[in-house]
C-alpha cells in the first residue's frame, strides 16, 4: 500500500525523491492560562507543494497548532521554521513579510470577512499590509479572483451578498493574492454543503497543481482528508499519535485511536471499534499515554511512560507501547 503513495507521479508526494522541507515544526508546546495544555510537543514537517492532513477530534489541539504556525498565537516552547527563517523569532516588518508567505483559509468565511468591506477590498487589504503599490495590487487582486473562478463583478459585493461557497472562493483568493508558499486550511470546507464542498476541493487541488503551494489541511472530516492529503497526522489530546501517508494510514492504521477513529465514521465499512466515554480533559490529562483511558488494548505499562513516535514502516510513525513492542 505504501508503494502507491510513493509511485504517484507527483514529485512532491510522500516518500518520493528527497522532498524539500518547507515548514518544520519541532516540539511545539502551548498551555493556556486556564491550565489547558492544548498542544503538548507537536512536531511536523510540510514539504514544498504537498498536502499534509491534520485530523483529530475537537480539543485535540489541531487548530491551536495552526494558529502558532501562523504566528497568531505565541508558543510556550518549540521551533517553527519556514524555509530557513525561524518564525518564532521574527517580529515587526520581518514578520509582516513572512506573513505573505503563509496564509489562512478559515472555516467560516462569514466571520472572517469584514462585513463592511467589499470582497475586493478585503482581498486587497492583504496586499496593502504588504505595502504593495496600487496598480500592482489591482493586477494581483484581479488575477487571484480569476484563479478561483470568481467573476470580477463580485468584487463590488459585500460578504452578506455571497453564498457560503462563493465566499469561501473569495477567502481562497484572499489567501492566494500574496503568492504564499503555504496555505493553512482550517476546516476550510466543513461549513459547506457537500455539493459545494466538492467544487471547492477540486479548486484547491487545481490551484496546488498550477501554483505549487503546500497545504496544511486541518479537518475533522476523514473522507475529505483522505481525498486531499499526501501525508496525514493524527492528533489526540495535544499530541501526534500517528503519522503516515494517506494511503498507508487508511489501509493499515497502527495506533488504536486511529483505528477507532476511522471505524467510527458512519458507513465506513470497517468493523466498528466503539470507544467508551469522551476524551479526557486537557487540564488534567492521564499519565503516560493520554489515550489509555479509552484504549481497548491498554496495558498497565501505558500509564507509566509517554509513548514516543516510533518509525514502524518507512514513513509510518506511531506513538504506542504495543507498536513499539511488536517492532522491537
Amino acid at each position: 500500500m505504501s508503494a502507491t503513495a510513493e509511485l504517484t507521479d507527483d514529485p512532491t508526494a510522500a516518500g518520493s525523491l528527497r522532498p524539500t522541507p518547507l515548514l518544520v515544526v519541532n516540539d511545539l508546546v502551548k498551555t493556556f492560562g486556564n491550565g489547558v495544555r492544548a498542544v503538548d510537543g507537536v512536531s511536523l514537517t510540510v514539504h514544498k507543494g504537498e498536502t499534509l492532513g491534520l485530523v483529530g477530534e475537537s480539543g485535540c489541539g489541531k487548530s491551536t497548532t495552526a494558529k502558532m504556525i501562523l504566528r497568531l498565537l505565541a508558543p510556550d516552547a518549540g521551533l517553527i521554521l519556514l524555509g530557513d527563517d525561524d518564525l518564532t523569532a521574527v517580529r515587526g516588518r520581518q514578520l509582516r513579510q513572512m506573513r505573505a508567505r503563509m496564509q489562512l483559509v478559515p472555516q467560516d468565511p462569514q466571520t472572517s470577512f469584514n462585513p463592511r468591506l467589499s470582497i475586493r477590498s478585503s482581498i486587497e487589504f492583504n496586499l496593502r499590509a504588504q505595502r504593495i503599490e496600487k496598480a500592482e495590487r489591482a493586477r494581483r487582486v484581479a488575477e487571484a479572483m480569476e484563479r478561483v473562478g470568481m467573476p470580477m463583478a463580485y468584487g463590488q459585493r459585500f460578504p452578506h451578498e455571497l453564498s457560503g461557497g462563493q465566499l469561501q472562493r473569495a477567502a481562497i483568493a484572499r489567501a492566494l493574492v500574496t503568492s504564499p508558499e503555504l496555505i493553512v486550511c482550517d476546516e476550510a470546507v466543513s461549513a459547506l454543503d457537500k455539493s459545494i464542498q466538492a467544487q471547492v476541493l477540486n479548486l484547491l487541488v487545481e490551484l496546488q497543481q498550477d501554483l505549487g503551494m503546500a497545504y496544511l489541511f486541518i479537518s475533522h472530516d476523514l473522507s475529505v482528508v483522505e481525498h486531499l492529503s499526501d501525508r496525514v497526522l493524527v492528533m489526540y489530546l495535544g499530541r501526534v499519535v500517528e503519522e503516515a501517508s494517506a494511503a498507508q494510514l487508511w489501509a493499515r492504521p497502527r495506533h488504536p485511536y486511529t483505528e477507532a477513529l476511522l471505524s467510527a465514521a458512519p458507513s465506513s465499512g470497517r468493523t466498528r471499534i466503539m470507544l467508551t466515554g469522551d476524551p479526557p480533559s486537557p487540564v488534567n490529562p492521564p499519565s503516560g499515554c493520554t489515550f489509555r483511558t479509552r484504549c481497548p488494548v491498554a496495558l498497565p505499562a501505558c500509564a507509566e511512560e509517554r509513548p514516543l513516535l516510533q518509525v514502524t514502516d518507512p514513513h509510518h510513525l506511531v506513538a504506542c507501547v504495543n507498536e513499539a513492542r511488536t517492532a522491537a
Partner: protein
Amino acid sequence: MTTLATTSDADTMADGPTPAGRDSAGGDSNATLRLRDLHTTFSSRGLTVHAVRGVDLDLHPGEITVLLGESGSGKSVTAKSVMRLYGANATFAGTVELDGRGDLLAAGPKEMLSVRGPEIALIPQDPSAALDPLRRIGAQIVEVLRQHKAVPTKAAAKARALELLGQVGIPDPARVYRSFPHELSGGMRQRAVIAIAVSCDPRVLIADEPTTALDVTVQAQILALFRSLIDRMGSAVLLVTHDVGVAEEVGDRIGVMYAGRIVEYGPAADVLGAPRHPYTRALLDSIPSPGVARGQLRSITGQPPVSGELPPGCAFAPRCPDAHDRCRATDPVLVDLPGRRLAACHLLSPDDGPAAASAGAAGSTTTAGPEGTDRTEGEESAA
C-alpha cells in the same frame, strides 16, 4: 398531490406485515404521523419564503425516517413544522395528522402544549443551546416529567429521571443529575437532552441533526444508543440530517429533499445504493470516496436555488446534467417506482404529459418492468 406510495397501499395489504414491520410504505393506516401536502411559508418585511412546498410523509412506529438534504432544502423546517415551533411569521397549509389527535395544524396553542413532550418530542442539534445553563440536569428532566404529569410525586420524578439518565448510557446518573450543563462534555449533554426527549415516552421523536455537533467517535456512540432506544420504545422517528453516512447508518427510509420538496423516497439502502433521482445521484457522487482521484470529485455545478427565486419547472433543472426542455417548463411530481420507491423526475416517467405540472391526484399505477424501463402510467389529473 401524489400521496406517498399510493400504489404501495395495495402492496402493503397484500404482503401483510413485512420483516421488522419496516417495509410498509406510506399511505397505510398504521402510520403514527401523516403529513399531507405540507407547506410552510415565512414572511417578514414583505419578503416571502416558501420553505416547504408540499411534503407528504408517513412515520411508522419503530422506524427511523430520514430527511436528507443540504442547507435550505426545507428538511428542518418540515420537522419543526410538525411541532409548530415557529412564530407568527410562519403560515402552514396541508395537514399533519397525529394518530388519535387529528390535524395538528388545526390544533390550538393549548392543545399543542399537551402534544409537545408526551406525544411528539424534539432532539435538537445543539445540546448546549437546548439546556438551561443555570439549572441542573436533574431539575430539567424533573420539570418535564412534572409538567406533563408523567409521575405522581417529586420523589417518583427524581427516581424516573435517574432511571432515564441510566437508560441513555450515562455511567454515573447521580453525578450527572446534580451537574450543570457546562460541567458535561458534548456527548454527555446530548445524552441528557435525549433523556429529556424520551422522558414522557413520546410516540413521535423528531431529531434535528442530533449528532452534527459531536465528534465522530462520540457520534458513533450516540447513533448506536439512538437506534437501541427506538427499537425498545417503538417511537416513530423523523431524523433530519445533511450527512449521508448518518442517514445510511440509522435510516430505515429516506426522503431526499431539494428546494422544499421530497424528490426521492424509499428504503434507505435502496435510495443510497441505487439512487434514481439525478439530484440524489449527484449528491452521492460529490462525496469524496477512496476510488476518486484527487481533484476529480464530481461536483454539482451552481448553487441550490434561493427560496423565493425558484426556477420554473423542476427546481433542480438548472444544475441537472440531464435536464431537457420539459424539466425547465413543468415541475415533475413524485411517481411510484418498483421496490416501493418514489422519485420526482421527468426522466423517470417519459410518458406523462404537461398536465403533470398541475398536482396529480392519487391513484397513479406503476407497471414494473425490468430495471430501468419502468413505465409509469400516471393519472396526473388536477386534484
